């Protein structure tokens, strides 16, 4: 009986802000019954040594991501737009502060 329900806790992704001024960064995942428990588990599991000042937990099945197969459609077009980079423009060395 317990076999069926035993592993029904959903998976959560954990993001930790290491210190003020930095983004939250993905650090791993964990299992929890709900969001408050996920937050407590994340504190115990990922911040035992002052690794963070803030934690986000997100249900893994709520994350939508691009896949490896989407690589070309998503990222290839930016490759041929060199004019988006400052080094594309030649300015004489004699011009200051630019």
């Amino acid at each position, binding site marked *: 009986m*317990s076999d069926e*329900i*035993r*592993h*029904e*806790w959903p*998976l959560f992704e954990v993001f930790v802000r290491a210190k003020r001024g930095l983004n939250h960064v993905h650090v*791993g*995942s*964990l*299992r929890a*019954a*709900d969001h408050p*428990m996920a937050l407590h588990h994340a504190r*115990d*599991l990922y911040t*035992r*040594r002052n690794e963070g000042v803030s934690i986000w937990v997100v249900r893994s099945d709520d994350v939508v*991501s691009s*896949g*490896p197969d989407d690589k070309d459609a998503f990222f290839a077009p930016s490759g041929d737009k060199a004019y988006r980079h400052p080094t594309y423009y030649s300015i004489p060395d004699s011009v200051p502060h630019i």
Partner: protein
Amino acid sequence: MTGEQVFEETIAKDQRVEPRDWMPDGYRKTMIRQIAQHAHSEIIGMQPEGAWITRAPTLRRKAILLAKVQDEAGHGLYLYSAAETLGADRGDLTRRLIDGRQKYSSIFNYPTLTFADVGVIGWLVDGAAICNQVPLCRSSYGPYARAMIRICKEESFHQRQGYELLMTMMRGTAAQREMVQDATDRWWWPSLMMFGPPDDESPNSAQSMAWKIKRHSNDDLRQRFVDMSVPQAEALGVTLPDPALRWNADREHYDFGEIDWVEFKRVISGGGPMNAERIAHRRRADEDGAWVREAAAAHAAKRAKVGAA
């Protein structure tokens, strides 16, 4: 490019394979097996030292040991998390461990007879683990490599607390010094076995090296551990229980005696002094905790329903 070509190129360029990438079935299976075995070792590894938490001689040692055992739990969970990125299920892995279908490190099948064992486990067992694990921080599978980086940072505390504990005992009474020597005698050879079978008897090694799952051979890592440990033993004032142990100027390494591979095989296949007890304990913890997991899940489901209404 096909998924296979991307995979080959990723490995060749020494880049990391990530969860949603195409990978050969063999790579996925090997990674799951290795990560699960590693996770199980961390979880089972809580038991030998956990047994001493209530009997630690001072509040300071108790707090240290508690933190260390908590770390082992954390390491197990980082690793189960990495295994789940490959499609493994955490609960299923635990069942496989309890049913004896997946293994864990043979080292945890030896008993911790005295408090000196806590120190020697930190010094030698965690020392050997660090030797094994540092190269795994560059393993080709991204989530595993990242978990190993966290683990290695924390293992350093484990080894140092053990060595400091032993130094304290060596400054104590003659009886305490004897305890340290006795624990060293019992743990030295099992620690050398932690690196696995010799290279010519390690069937999966070549493929794992080609896939960059593994970076050094078992024998290379074992030699590195012996070379590190000898001066540490001297500084501590204990004798390592191997009459064949001596510096070889030609090789610029320590030579050491023959490992008892018969014992290794016996312990790994369930015949060690503590195998049955370790698994029974893990099974009991899983069964005793079942109602808590079920109640928490039921509570969460009920609250979700109330929230939706």
